[in-house]
């Protein structure tokens, strides 16, 4: 099953342990893993299910190509890494 890890920067806001998920795409994996984690989900996706603008996702070290649809394929061995973009101020 794909594993989902979250940036440690989330830890200041809430617990974000590593999760496992079912699914063949990033979208399916996130929907599965966060189905019972509404608060954590809301940190990563907005209420319309869109990836937050300043959050990004890497699959085994490479950034996803479909931020909008989250259709990038994942396998049972994929590590999905949810991290924040950097911003100033």
């Amino acid at each position: 099953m794909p594993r989902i890890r979250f940036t440690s920067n989330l830890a200041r806001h809430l617990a974000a342990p590593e999760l496992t998920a079912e699914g063949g795409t990033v979208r399916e994996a996130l929907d599965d893993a966060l189905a019972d984690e509404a608060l954590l989900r809301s940190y990563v996706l907005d209420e319309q299910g869109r990836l937050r603008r300043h959050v990004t996702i890497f699959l085994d070290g490479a950034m996803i190509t479909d931020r909008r649809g989250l259709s990038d394929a994942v396998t049972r061995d994929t590590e999905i890494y949810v991290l924040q973009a950097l911003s100033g101020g």
Partner: protein
Amino acid sequence: MPSIDVATRKGLFRIEKADEGWTVVTPPAFLGEPVSAILTDPRDGTRYAALRLGHFGCRLHRSGDGGASWQEVPAPAYPKSDAEDAPALDMIWELVPGGADQPGLIWAGTLPGGLFVSRDRGDSWDLVTSLWEKPERARWFGGGYDHPGIHSILVDPRDSRRLALGISCGGVWLSEDGGESWTQGGQGLRADFLPPDQATDPVSQDPHRLSACAARPERIWCQHHNGIFVSSDGGATFVEIAGVKPAHFGFAVAAHPIDPDTAWFVPGVKDECRVPVDGQLVVTRTRDGGAGFDALSGGLPGTPCYDLIYRHALAVDASGDVLAMGSTTGNLWVSESAGTEWELVSAHLPPVHAVAFV
């Protein structure tokens, strides 16, 4: 002990009046996080703090122990939609308690223009669809942000079903039935930024802030993008007050809680130059319903000064004698003389979004 909450770009601070004067209490809450709105509910003492995180969206926290500990509760959320540009919460701009007869009811004004209500102290929220579905909303537009936003929510203390909203830019909206239905108020507001033949269109107005006299809530003061206006009928109609010196542009306004003819403003040069006139920060105060204004600078910095006061960053206490004011430059002042003299409490806070007496 008198205390004031100060919501800033980098945390929620509190100042308290002790024997040695007003001091900043440490540590702040949510240090490093942008705090966009705050509320201490006078009905039950519950505190609320809205965050606008740069990466992780808008968050809402609640404290039942005066801020010693905080619990995250769900933030208002827009209904699911398949539309490509489906709305999502961008900022909680105002949190206001319902009436004394509505325990646990909280109103939230947001970007991109939705009014939300919670009836369970923030455990859940509903979009007020009666306003959201108004056809006029299609003509609202952003004022300072990409999308329109509700920044002022006035609940009539005599009848909590009577509501008035200030929207940038969507004008003034009124409800007589607790939000079940809405009518456009704000007749008489005038906007030079609109084409001349539309300057008085109430839908497109940019009231920067509304503030009502608690004892006479039909009296509403408005700092508008275009100047200072006053209503004597609960926001249905407004009269423009021209010629206010040193300027009529600004964001903040505080209405006296008892005297309907007294209000305070903080002027800037004009919309395209949002700094104090001639580099001198002043507070303007009327005590006669707008016939005259005093420009007050006692205790405020001499020139050059370029502080700007955001719309929620000027507040007056329940007596009408004590005011607090915070600036984008991180200065915080308190006046215990109804604005005549000001004391600098801190010159080193993050940019101040809002101040509120607790």
